[in-house]
């Protein structure tokens, strides 16, 4: 049986949106898939050695907050200084208490399972990012390189 292929484009760099590419990538690899993740725009934040990912309730009416606060809290309050830090810290605590892996751990599990990470060269230049800030084993490439793999993939998703 030929190995199945999963191609993912990761475009978001917040703590909540960091999960889907790494959870699906590592799980697919465990199931025997060959996996490539193409990181572009804000998704490039997920490749940094030192992750500083945050989550914010601002502009996200669906985000559950402790004690059902999201039902009555005025949107403006979610924009107050410190809200982002508080919500990020709460989310991390909640995840740890529920046995949800950290992004660092899932990313490492992906790499151990030979999931390939590709950083979008154009965005790296656009944002003046330094590739030496990224973890080891990252390939810098463009859209055509992604299609080389994605064109033959069984599943392709945009996150």
């Amino acid at each position, binding site marked *: 049986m030929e190995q199945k292929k999963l191609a993912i484009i990761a475009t978001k760099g917040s703590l909540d949106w960091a999960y889907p590419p790494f959870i699906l990538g*590592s799980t697919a690899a*465990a199931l025997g898939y060959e996996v490539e993740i193409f990181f572009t725009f804000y998704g490039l934040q997920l490749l940094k050695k030192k992750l500083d990912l945050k989550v914010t309730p601002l502009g996200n009416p669906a985000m559950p907050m402790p004690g059902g606060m999201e039902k009555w809290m005025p949107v403006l309050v979610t924009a107050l200084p410190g809200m982002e830090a508080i919500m990020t810290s709460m989310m991390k605590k909640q995840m740890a208490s529920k046995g949800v892996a950290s992004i660092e751990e899932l990313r490492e599990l992906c790499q151990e*399972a030979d999931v390939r990470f590709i950083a979008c060269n154009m965005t790296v230049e656009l944002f003046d990012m330094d590739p030496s800030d990224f973890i080891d084993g990252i390939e810098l490439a463009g859209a055509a390189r992604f299609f080389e793999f994605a064109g033959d993939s069984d599943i392709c998703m945009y996150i």
Partner: protein
Amino acid sequence: MADFDEELDASGLNCPLPILRAKKALAGMDSGKVLHIIATDPGSVKDFEAFSKQTGNELIESKEEGGKFHFLIRKA
């Protein structure tokens, strides 16, 4: 519970960690050996069925006992 060769306690871990840890444990075992996995994540019941189907490692037993889920998987 039938005999097993290795044991993995994935209690307290949430999706997809039990599957990832099991995959890692199986990688270090010889073909035909049996891995006993203990988990508390209710989603792991369906997940281990799917894992077995897709990887060819046979799920010999799956049961709930004392609030925990137990799986026996034979490495293909």
